[in-house]
């Protein structure tokens, strides 16, 4: 029988991690062991997470396909569904429709140096790719991570950051907007810090995600560093309902973010009409 694209897989929350005052991470497994075993996705793909009775919202699967004990979603509280999700606890049931959308062109990135630039909740989509690459470390060149947040308490995945900082195969930089007592890392806006770190654009790809204003200036910074449009990858966010290119609200001209995205190179974005 044809799959019902609207019927979510039932899933159980295994663990809830409070990341920041408005971000929570959920580790979930599909209830059907078969489905969980056969679940496959690529870094960058998203899922529609349901709280039945409230609705669905779209989140990137931010655990990597190389670690399939659970699927991880990080949820920033903005509206009805995200608020509801924030009230859930381990053991609670949710629905998941995944994977949806395209993925990072991680195959094309093989052999290249990688620069991740993430801001705030924008770290979530980068995390999946970063971990994937770390799990396939030999395939990639130098990996640089620049992750910034407003302040240390707004920084998600803090429990992993020490590990990342300690690795010698990963060049990790953390930054916050303004000085903060006890903060030992960089202080400054992401684009400025990026210019300080000045990763080489030679045989490199930059992947960036974050709030619109950060993206705007990060793109400018990358440009200054010599990154060409084809070397810059980012992800877009839109209000989505069906997630499969039918319901008609996430299009930018002919492109449906839920199908053709959410990952776009800057070169692709330039082809799209201006309606972000």
């Amino acid at each position, binding site marked *: 029988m044809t799959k019902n*694209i609207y019927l979510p897989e039932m899933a159980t929350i295994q663990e809830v991690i409070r990341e920041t005052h408005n971000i929570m991470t959920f580790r979930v497994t599909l209830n059907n062991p078969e489905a969980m075993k056969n679940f496959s996705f690529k870094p960058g793909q998203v899922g529609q997470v349901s709280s039945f009775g409230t609705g669905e919202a779209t989140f990137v699967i931010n655990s990597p396909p190389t670690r399939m004990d659970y699927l991880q979603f990080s949820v920033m509280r903005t509206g009805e569904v995200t608020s509801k999700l924030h009230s859930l606890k381990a053991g609670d049931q949710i629905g998941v429709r995944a994977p949806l959308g395209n993925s990072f062109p991680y195959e094309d990135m093989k052999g290249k140096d990688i620069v991740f630039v993430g801001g705030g909740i924008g770290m979530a989509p980068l995390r999946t790719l970063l971990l994937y690459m770390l799990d396939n470390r030999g395939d990639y060149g130098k990996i640089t991570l620049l992750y910034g947040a407003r302040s240390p308490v707004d920084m998600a995945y803090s429990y992993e950051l020490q590990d990342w900082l300690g690795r010698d195969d990963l060049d990790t930089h953390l930054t916050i907007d303004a000085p903060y007592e006890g903060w030992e890392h960089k202080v400054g806006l992401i684009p400025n810090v990026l210019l300080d770190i000045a990763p080489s654009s030679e045989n490199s790809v930059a992947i960036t995600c974050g709030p619109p204003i950060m993206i705007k200036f990060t793109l400018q910074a990358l440009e200054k560093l010599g990154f060409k449009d084809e070397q810059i990858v980012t992800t877009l966010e839109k209000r989505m309902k*069906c997630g499969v290119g039918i319901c008609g609200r996430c299009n930018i001209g002919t492109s449906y973010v839920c199908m053709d995205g959410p990952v776009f190179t800057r070169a692709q974005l330039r082809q799209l009409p201006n309606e972000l």
Partner: protein
Amino acid sequence: MAKVQFIKSADVKPWLAELAKEHRVFAPSYDGEALLFRPFDPEQEIVLDRAATMPPKKTIFPQSEKLVDFTYSKDPENLSRIKIDAKANLPEGSTVVFGSRPCDARGFTMFDRVYLSDKNPDIYYQARRKNTLFITLACRTIENTCFCNWVDSDPCDPTGSDVLAIPVNDGYLLESVSEQGEKLLNSKLLADGSSRRAEAEKICQEIAGSINNTKDLTLAPEKLLAVFDNMEFWEEVSAKCLSCGACTYLCPSCYCFNITDETTGMKGKRLRSWDNCMSAQFTMEASGHNPRPTKAHRLKNRVGHKFSYYPTIHGGVISCCGCGRCIKSCPAGIDIREIVLKAIDFVPAAVEE
């Protein structure tokens, strides 16, 4: 070879009554001042000489439908362990729509390309679509708002129909279009109509001749894209738009929807309901950001989708069937034809060096 039958005007109702034994039958009749496709009722007059207020869109794409039924149940040992049972109920049974117009039936072909894609078929739509047959009535009269001929169709276009009925003097000539349609034409009330084909063809030609002059819309996709960033253009053409959903909801080819959940006690449902791209809510994000904040942005998307994006994606087919309902029903009298032509004719102001 298509089956060709003839039915006398007076036999239409008895025939529908026959069909209603096996199918749900919808036919146009008045509800108040609105002419709607309503469940066939022998007591009610069927009105066939004019286009219905609403296309028969609801017969395949209901205004709202349940996608998922869900039930919560508690573990009596631990009340906070809640099981959720989610079930989808697919529509069953077959439907015959009588009296749809060629533009109405053709509208669903716009749906098909999206809802019946190989990758992500919509099984709710699919279940209704394959079991819904259209006995389409060729148009005998043309209205000021008709422009099916602009969008590669005509008043006798059988595309999307199962049977095409052509009104002749004393009845209707019924030509099967699909196999399923052919099966509908087995009634004893019907007689062989081959002899009247010429007459019907003549009528079709006559009508085709009376329709408004066609316009060439080949350039529409690229021209609409060319004015994408010209907000002044869009603000001007959308100035009188009220952002209501009359145009989209009456459009045979508008297929956007919303998904919302409702719960009552321990039961709930996930609903799919018509949505309207002219509404600010349509693209409003939880953060309050709206990529289409003004009616100019939204009208641009509506016109753009129909005459540019859809054709670009789907091999040049314009996602408009020219029925003209959006023009007729628009409370502000917006004429989509005017906008498309304006975009095609638009010459950007020369930039002074």
